[in-house]
């Protein structure tokens, strides 16, 4: 134990002062972190992602239908019906249907008919969305659930 007249390594007052400063710093950082909880949404305002579209009979094999509101292309083939999202995987613009695929107006991504990227900055192909059928016979697309591209819904 050091004698009373020996100098302490860290004077008591300095220690208490530093402890106070650090406590204040932790409190400030902690409250900023706590405040960021407020702008971070815990409930998202959007409704469900599922929406009903037409009946399968209205979409004979070989036809397709663009639903601009839902940002989806319904494509009917002999293999079944598929829903391809029209939201560009690059930065969220809506791609336009072209003769042999899709083109994005914002940054020039190009997609093939099945949604594969064939040019431009998009990191991945257009999403294929889950298609099912409701009890009333209408088709239901789930915009929140992606399926393997090339998986068709057989009526």
């Amino acid at each position, binding site marked *: 134990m050091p004698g009373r007249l020996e100098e302490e390594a860290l004077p008591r007052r300095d220690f208490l002062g530093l402890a106070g400063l650090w406590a204040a710093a932790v409190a400030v950082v902690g409250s900023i972190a706590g405040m*960021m909880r407020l*702008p*971070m*949404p815990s409930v*998202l*305002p*959007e409704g469900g992602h599922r929406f009903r579209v037409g009946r399968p009979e209205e979409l004979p094999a070989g036809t397709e239908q663009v639903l*601009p*509101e839902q*940002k989806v292309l319904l494509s009917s083939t002999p293999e079944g019906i598929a829903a391809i999202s029209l939201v560009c995987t*690059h*930065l*969220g*613009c*809506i791609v*336009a249907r072209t003769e042999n695929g899709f*083109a*994005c*107006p*914002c*940054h*020039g991504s*190009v997609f093939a008919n099945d949604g*594969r*990227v*064939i*040019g*431009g*900055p998009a*990191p*991945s192909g257009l999403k294929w969305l889950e298609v099912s059928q409701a009890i009333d016979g209408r088709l239901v697309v789930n915009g929140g659930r992606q399926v393997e591209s090339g998986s068709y819904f057989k009526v």
Partner: protein
Amino acid sequence: MSSTGLGAFWENLRNLPRNLRESVLRHGRPVSDRGRSLAVFSNLFLHIHATRSNVRSLRFSTTLGLGVASFSLFLILLVTGILLMVYYAPSTSLAYNSIKDIHFVVPTGRLIRNIHRWAAHLMVIAVLLHMCRVFYTSAYKAPREFNWMLGMALFVLTLALSFTGYLLPWDQLAYWAITIGANIAASPRELTDALGITQVFDPGGIQKQLLLGASEVGQDALIRFYLLHVIVLPLALAALAGVHFWRIRKDGGLAKPGVQQTAAGKGASVTAAAAAPEDSPTKSFGLMCVVRDRSPATNQTVEDTVPSWPHLMRAELLIFMITMLLSVVLGLWLDAPLKEMANPAIPENPAKAPWYFLGLQEMVSYSAFMGGLIIPAIVVFGLTLIPYLDREPEDVGSYLSAPGAKRVAAWSLFIGAVGAVTAVAVPVNFGWLRNWFPDIDQLVIIAINPGSLLTAVYAAWSIIVLKRSGSTRMAAIALFSCFVIGFIILTWVGTYFRGPNWDFYWSPAQWPVH
């Protein structure tokens, strides 16, 4: 008793105008040098200025008035912005119509909105030119490194204010800019998706949700950007601008040739000549600068200086009036654009940002993550660190004064231009990796794209200059000049040569009709 009371009252009433003036101004007419110093010194708004200004600092050619112009534009934007807030409603259903009301119904609304828009564009230009002026006169050298850093922060805030501003009308430009901006914030997902770790670590998603308050662009996003535009960013900019101005004085005024400055800045004795003489005036006199000899702060003789009142005030007022005139003339002459109402189903084709972001849009069209986040971050951090990485003592205050500096700048502009044109021309003519190898990994595209290669070429050129000249200042000139010309060329390409689907066209006349 009552008569003397009445007499005193009349006396006070008679002296009311003079007493009022004296209670506010606290000094007489600024007819002497001391009076002029007091005029500056005893006024809260003026005392950020020195009481005396160097003659050279007052010359238009020294600063081109760009800093004062930037701040003048900020003031114009503040006033017109408050006026616009009277009628603007930050709601997705009301915003567009309130802007239309401001434009077509509200008296002077159209002019005020036009001035607000053009002053914002002018501010971006003024801030960029101010940065170039400070860089090329090496005015960022010690002790002014920190003020350069503050300037970079102000530059970023200016761009952020511009971005959040054009989102508010909720037209097609606004809606798709928010969408693209939020997705750029989410673009770290490009990397985390490619690595397959988005499920556990998703910084992009967190950033996007913080910005939008939702997973899609809507009312929550509008109110957040409104909040940023009208309160958060202007407050931050005003506070930092205050520090920026204060530091100009604390760092010894504007950079002047022939003045060697130490890192200690103001108040540090530099040379023997600067040592205070035996009969040096008292400190309060020193502050008033009614000194005979060299002042230790700036190492300049009194003869080099004139009273800030009226000389500096007049110069500043002149710059303010010119910026004001320019904004008003532009506002009378050109209408601020307003596109169709936001339509979440169909973006415009082409969907172009305002001109100052078109270079960025060009970069983003190579890779969202690399071009939208990494390269801008590298550029901002690189520019910010310039004064810390180039600490060569140098004569500051005149353009490219170091031997060989002009040659390095010219070569760098040339190489920067060739690089930028190549970076655009190659993908336009030959496509890029995805067109050649359709199954290529996304990680490769993030790492190797025209934008990242251009950045690498600029860095490499700067290192070559560093090795050959052995001077960090030359390397800084090389890097900065490349950045400037790259920014100009990419912005030019985005503005004039990009058409529908972001395809390359030599002129809009060649755009496909549809």
